[in-house]
Structures are given as structure tokens and as C-alpha cells.
């Protein structure tokens, strides 16, 4: 058995063990902490699959941001946890669920082991056309040029999700601030970190954004980092979440999609198709879209974590 397979095998065992733990453990708080760890392990699996861009996204969003979101929810659900946990289904349902889950897994395993050889791939097409985008990172080229429609729609989906979350606000809090106010503990560890980390985090985010054109990285990863830094200052109590009725906030939310759409429609007369870039201008246009999207993604992700408005606009 060679070394690489041993590493992969151990990683798979660890991932499955943590996944089973998040399902089986009684306490929901422990389960969500387990899920955050699971996200980080999964990021390692992505590294082993040579998908560094996906690894960065999984670590930042799957592990980090989803972890924060679920931990906040677990804390708030704790008072009624024991009541709901008692509604466990009977042994028959459990057995049936196990059979169903086993069947689906077995079917997928068969599919995995009988994938066609040689594997179909679009890599040669990407390699052939990547020069026209001026980018060095093939994944960024796919996201922002070859499959730009997907990325545009995704940016819109994020905003729609936020509108849906906000619409859960009680009427009298509409336009107010999301989440509960965090108290500042001036000499606490969290406040210390919230003062120390954001300058570093912002620099790393800008770096990740900038190298995303040629190396693993890009607007999603950078936007998530910025969102995390903003959330850190809010949760430490150094900064309050803005009321959702603020004009600048609304502009920041849609700026990415609007810039994307504007450049997309400009492509119709200038390059002959929606979201086509005029020859020689692909890279600067992609960078403009990425910069605007990064800010919108950062604001949207942070507000999705904070949830619907729960108090008035006054601090």
C-alpha cells in the first residue's frame, strides 16, 4: 500500500467518523461544532482531489460561516431542545431509514466504481480557450467567462435568499437591525481578537481576490473572509449590525449583480452576445465584476448569518 493511499484512507475514515458523530450525538450544540470540524476535514479532501479553489470555499463557507450560523441557532434553540429531542421515531422507522440510506449509498458506490474510462473532461476545451480570457486560473475562467451565466444567477440567488430571510421579520421590526445586540467586553479575548484580526483578514482577503485571476482564490473566498471579519467585530460588540433599511446597505447588496448585468448587456452590442467580453478587454472587465461581486458577497453572507431584523433601527 503506498503512502498517498494511506493518507487518503485515513482522511476518509476521519471524515466519515465526524459525519456519523454529528448525526448520532445527543446534544445539538456538540453536533454543530462537529459539523464545523467536518467542513475543515472536507476541505482537506478537496486539497487531495487537486481542487484548491473548492477547498478554500469549503473551509471558508462550509466550515466557517455555516458553523457560525448553526452554532448561533443551536444556542437559541437550546431552551426547547430536550422537548423536541424526545420525539424520536420508533425502531421500525429507524430500520427503514437505515435500509433506504444503505440502498442509496450502495447505488452511488456502484456508480462511482463504474465511471467511464477514459473519463469525459472539458479540460482540453478550457485549455484551448483560456488565453482569450487573459486569466491563468482555469476555475476563475470557467466561473467568470465560460459559465458566467451560472455565476450571475448565483449572485442573484444570494440576494433572493437574504430577501426571504428578512421577510421573516415581525412587522414592527421591519427596517431595524438584524440579530440581538452583542455586549462589548472591553478587555475580553473576543474584543482583542476583533481588534487584531480584521486588518490582517482584510489584507489576506484582498490578496486572495487579486491572485484569484491566476492562482487558487477569487471573489467567493475573499468575500467570505471579509464577511467573517465584519461578523467578528459585530459579535465582539465593537460594531453594531446596520439597520436593513439603510440605503448604502441596499446598494452594496445589489452592486455585484448590477455591475455583472451591465457588463453582460454591454456585451450584446460590443461583442455580439450577452456576457461576451470584447476582445482584449476580458481580463479588466472580469476584475471589475469580481471586485464588485466580492463586496456584495461579503455583505450578503454576513447579513445571512445575522438573520432577520429583531429590533428597531435605534442602537
Amino acid at each position, binding site marked *: 500500500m503506498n503512502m498517498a493511499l494511506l493518507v487518503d484512507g485515513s482522511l476518509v475514515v476521519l471524515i466519515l467518523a465526524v459525519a456519523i458523530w454529528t*448525526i448520532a450525538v445527543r446534544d445539538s450544540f456538540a453536533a454543530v461544532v462537529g459539523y464545523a470540524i467536518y467542513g475543515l476535514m472536507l476541505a482537506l479532501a478537496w486539497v487531495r482531489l487537486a481542487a484548491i479553489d473548492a477547498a478554500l470555499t469549503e473551509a471558508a463557507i462550509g466550515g466557517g460561516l455555516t458553523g457560525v450560523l448553526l452554532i448561533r441557532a443551536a444556542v437559541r434553540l437550546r431552551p426547547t431542545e430536550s422537548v423536541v429531542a424526545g420525539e424520536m421515531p420508533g425502531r421500525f422507522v429507524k430500520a427503514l431509514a437505515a435500509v433506504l440510506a444503505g440502498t442509496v449509498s450502495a447505488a452511488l458506490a456502484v456508480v462511482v466504481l463504474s465511471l467511464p474510462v477514459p473519463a469525459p473532461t472539458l479540460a482540453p476545451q478550457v485549455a484551448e480557450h483560456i488565453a482569450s480570457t487573459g486569466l491563468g486560473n482555469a476555475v476563475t475562467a*470557467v466561473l467568470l467567462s465560460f459559465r458566467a451565466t451560472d455565476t450571475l444567477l448565483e449572485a442573484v440567488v444570494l440576494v433572493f435568499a437574504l430577501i426571504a430571510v428578512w421577510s421573516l421579520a415581525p412587522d414592527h421590526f421591519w427596517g431595524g437591525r438584524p440579530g440581538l445586540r452583542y455586549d462589548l467586553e472591553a478587555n475580553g479575548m473576543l474584543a482583542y481578537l476583533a481588534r487584531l484580526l480584521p486588518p490582517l483578514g482584510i489584507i489576506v482577503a484582498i490578496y486572495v481576490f487579486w491572485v484569484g485571476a491566476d492562482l487558487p482564490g477569487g471573489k467567493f473566498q475573499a468575500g467570505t473572509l471579509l464577511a467573517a471579519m465584519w461578523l467578528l467585530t459585530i459579535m465582539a460588540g465593537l460594531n453594531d449590525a446596520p439597520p436593513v433599511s439603510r440605503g448604502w446597505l441596499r446598494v452594496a447588496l445589489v452592486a455585484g449583480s448590477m455591475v455583472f448585468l451591465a457588463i453582460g448587456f454591454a456585451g450584446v452590442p460590443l461583442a455580439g452576445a450577452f456576457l461576451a467580453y470584447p476582445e482584449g478587454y476580458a481580463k479588466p472587465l472580469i476584475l471589475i465584476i469580481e471586485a464588485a461581486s466580492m463586496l456584495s458577497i461579503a455583505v450578503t453572507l454576513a447579513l445571512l448569518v445575522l438573520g432577520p431584523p429583531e429590533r428597531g433601527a435605534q442602537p
Partner: protein
Amino acid sequence: MNGAALFGLCGAALVGIGIYGLIVNPQPLRKILSFNLIGSGVFLLFGVVARRGAALGMGGDPVPQALVITGIVVAFSATALAVALLLRLQETGGSATLVPPESAGPSDAS
């Protein structure tokens, strides 16, 4: 068996673990968690397909890799919406249970 196939089997197992948790766990938060496990298993299968498509110096087919990145972000937004719905349910109903308050017969008969 190579590394990619191993991770493929891992993805298949994760989908199964997620389905079991989704059905068996009564707490809605745990169901959301399980659903995310299913999702990450599917993403991992995508990653395996991408890895197998490695060619011309690229470590994997960049198209499925890009789709996975999009998928992870959309999965997060769906999770955030589910959590917001859940917290609102607890706020209005007093507890985050999915069992209807009156388990009497069907009310649509009237």
C-alpha cells in the same frame, strides 16, 4: 483502487449518513445538518468526477470544480434561510418542533 475512487465511496457513504440523519433525527436543526451532509457528499462526487478529468497539466476538470464552488455558496444561502425559518418557528410556536400541535384527525374534511 486509487485516491479519487476512495473519495467517491466516501461521498456515497456521506449521502447515506445524511439521509439516515434526515429521517431519524427529530430536531429540525439536526435535519438541516443532515441535509448539508447529503449536499457535501454530492459535491464530493462532483470533485471525484472533476479529478478523473485531469488533463493537460490541470489537476482536474475545472468545469465541475467551478460548479461545486457555486453549489457550496448556494447551499449556504439555503441553510441560512432554513435556520431563519426555524428560529421564527420557535419564536411564534414556543418550541421548534415539527409535530403538529393537534394530532387529531385530518382537519381538511370540514
